[in-house]
């Protein structure tokens, strides 16, 4: 099942209520997680951190990482991209290519992401809404991120980035769009299903810890 970690509802910048989106997502076979910066009951809730400086990013992470089921960082600025992938409180760095000519992932970012386990996110909405040469650039960025991920072994996360009902995509559609950027079937399925599940399970595991590395024995 496609677990979509980046969907906005009416509570942030979206156009539909969470209940509406949840019903629609269920009919599409998508597990919905809302990234509104608000804690929703019964739905995995996350936050997309927008920061312009390293200091601002760290302060946002400190303030919010225990509140939400996952934290995503809005990338683009190279300083933010590097800082985000080095911090294990971050679950994924989203669209590191935003507003850049390159894909925003260099060898430093790629190595750090592989070491810290922070996923690098590509957003289907960027591909769908872009036109002409802008879409060409987005496709090239997706390809480059995939190539570096194969080389350095960091995880790639794919999200819809939906702000309205018409942006939600089913697993089949998302897989077809990722195939346009050179994703093999297994790679696409990993980015759409396995990586988001790992992100959600990691936070559940961390919450059980009494202190770093110490948790109740199960069973």
């Amino acid at each position, binding site marked *: 099942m496609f677990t979509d970690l980046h969907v906005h509802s009416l509570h942030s910048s979206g156009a539909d209520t969470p209940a509406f989106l949840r019903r629609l997502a269920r009919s599409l076979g998508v597990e919905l997680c809302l990234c509104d910066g608000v804690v929703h009951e019964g739905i995995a809730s996350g936050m997309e951190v927008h920061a312009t400086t390293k200091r601002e990013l760290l302060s946002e992470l400190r303030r919010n990482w225990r509140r939400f089921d996952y934290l995503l960082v809005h990338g683009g600025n190279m300083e933010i991209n590097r800082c985000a992938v080095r911090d294990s409180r971050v679950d994924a760095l989203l669209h590191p290519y935003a507003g850049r000519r390159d894909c925003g992932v260099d060898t430093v970012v790629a190595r750090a992401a592989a070491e810290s386990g922070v996923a690098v996110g590509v957003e289907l909405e960027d591909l*769908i809404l872009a036109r002409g040469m802008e879409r060409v650039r987005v496709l090239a960025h997706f390809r480059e991120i995939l190539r570096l991920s194969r080389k350095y072994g960091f995880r790639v996360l794919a999200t819809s980035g939906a702000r309205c009902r018409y942006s939600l995509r089913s697993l089949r559609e998302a897989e077809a769009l990722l195939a346009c950027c050179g994703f093999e079937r297994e790679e696409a399925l990993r980015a759409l299903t396995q990586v988001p599940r790992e992100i959600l399970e990691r936070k559940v595991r961390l919450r059980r810890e009494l202190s770093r590395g110490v948790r109740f024995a199960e069973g």
Partner: protein
Amino acid sequence: MLRAKPLPASLRPRKRYIAFRAESDRRLTKREVGSAIAASALSLFGETGVSEMNLRLLEFREDEQRGFVVCAHTQVLRAVAAMSAVSEIAGERVHLRPLGVSGTVRALRRKFLSGEAALISSEKRVKLEGKDFILRGTISGLCYAEPVDEVLRERLRILKLRFVGVLDKELRGEEDAADAKHGL
């Protein structure tokens, strides 16, 4: 005029039919949908790619907003990608949502194009969490409401939408688990 003799079955190109539903805040025409699919496929795969796909819109029922396209049997993934990449028609957000794939038109009609709930239009004034909306339509419990509030209307304008999506339960005051606690 003399018609071409049909090819033997073994030499005919193999096809797949993909059923889809057009979702938008307004009723779309066959011409609009056909040109949107063609433009999207051309933009994603270029002329050579589309010639290999053999992608065509065969039918689109404007009353149900559903139809189907045909493509080469090896190009289903590309056809789905082309439909999925259609984001707007005439300045409004749309989505052509694939319903299923079949090898024959008869099977496609039976499996995916029969029995759909119809949209019920209305003009009712409703309240959601203290804000006024005008309910415009309901389909299978999913309601489309036009906000009266200017801030929300501006947000919808930016997103190229007309309506907010709400569940009928929410309008009846039965709170759905996720929404109970937050204001809009």
